[in-house]
């Protein structure tokens, strides 16, 4: 129960940060990404504030032998740069620049019952499921090809 309270608090703080910073306002996100019409650099400072705090606290937290409510830290260890990473991130950026929403602000904005946010989360979910199905299809067809005759 304490663990769930901690996760709920983290989510609430995260959502509050998104709303305070302006990330939940699609017009502000687009004014940051659109360099042609009076650029608003505010959202670069959101990254500076978030990374500045997390850079320090993340290292302090990892001094602990383990998390408070889990047996170990789940920090990613992959270092390879593959096409999937670059193409996927590139696609995400295109969708972000088109709509002005990334997943976190989209979810926070659902609570305002805004049609934009609701539609965004529904089609984003469809996109996730679509790619997962495509990935399974690829994996199923990656089985070794039968040896060819002659």
């Amino acid at each position, binding site marked *: 129960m304490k663990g769930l*309270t*901690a996760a709920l608090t983290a989510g609430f703080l995260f959502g509050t940060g998104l709303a305070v910073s302006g990330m939940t*306002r699609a017009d502000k996100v687009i004014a940051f990404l659109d360099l042609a019409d009076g650029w608003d*650099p505010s959202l670069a400072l959101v990254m500076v504030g978030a990374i500045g705090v997390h850079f320090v606290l993340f290292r302090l937290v990892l001094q602990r032998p383990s998390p408070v409510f889990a047996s170990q830290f789940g920090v990613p260890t992959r270092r390879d740069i593959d096409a999937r*990473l670059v193409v*996927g991130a590139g696609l995400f950026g295109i969708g972000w620049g088109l709509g002005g929403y990334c997943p976190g602000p989209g979810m*926070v904005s659902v*609570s305002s019952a805004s049609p934009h946010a609701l539609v965004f989360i529904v089609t984003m979910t469809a996109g996730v499921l679509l*790619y997962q199905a495509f990935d399974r299809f690829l994996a199923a067809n990656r089985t070794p090809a039968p040896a060819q005759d002659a």
Partner: protein
Amino acid sequence: MTTFTPVSALSGGALIGLAASLLMMSHGRIAGISGIYKGLLPGVEGDRDWRVAFVGGLLLAGLAFTWLVPGAVEASAQRSVGLTAVAGLIVGVGVTMGNGCTSGHGVCGISRISRRSLVATAAFMTTGMITATLVQLLMGGVL
């Protein structure tokens, strides 16, 4: 066009960094919103409780701001709902293929100085800026 808001941007950002640190301390997890959300979808076993609580916290924050600060979380873009639907689909495919979004790669990954996240952030910042700038130049921002 919107006005430059350095104080709210920095302080909101600091809250995001604090929240990500809290989740790392409590559950040892990266606060990547797309990753947390993916774990809630059908086909993923176990490990759901903290994800439900975290997303519940996001929604509660949205409710609080909708109620207390009009204009903070409502859609205010000039984009149509139809274009937003297409954008959502592309975001869903992109974050699944690239394993993360603005939070997981942009905030958490860069804080860890992860090579993969640095590359991913450079990629989505570049394509995001090209896309939004093109929509402005070609369509006057309305699409």
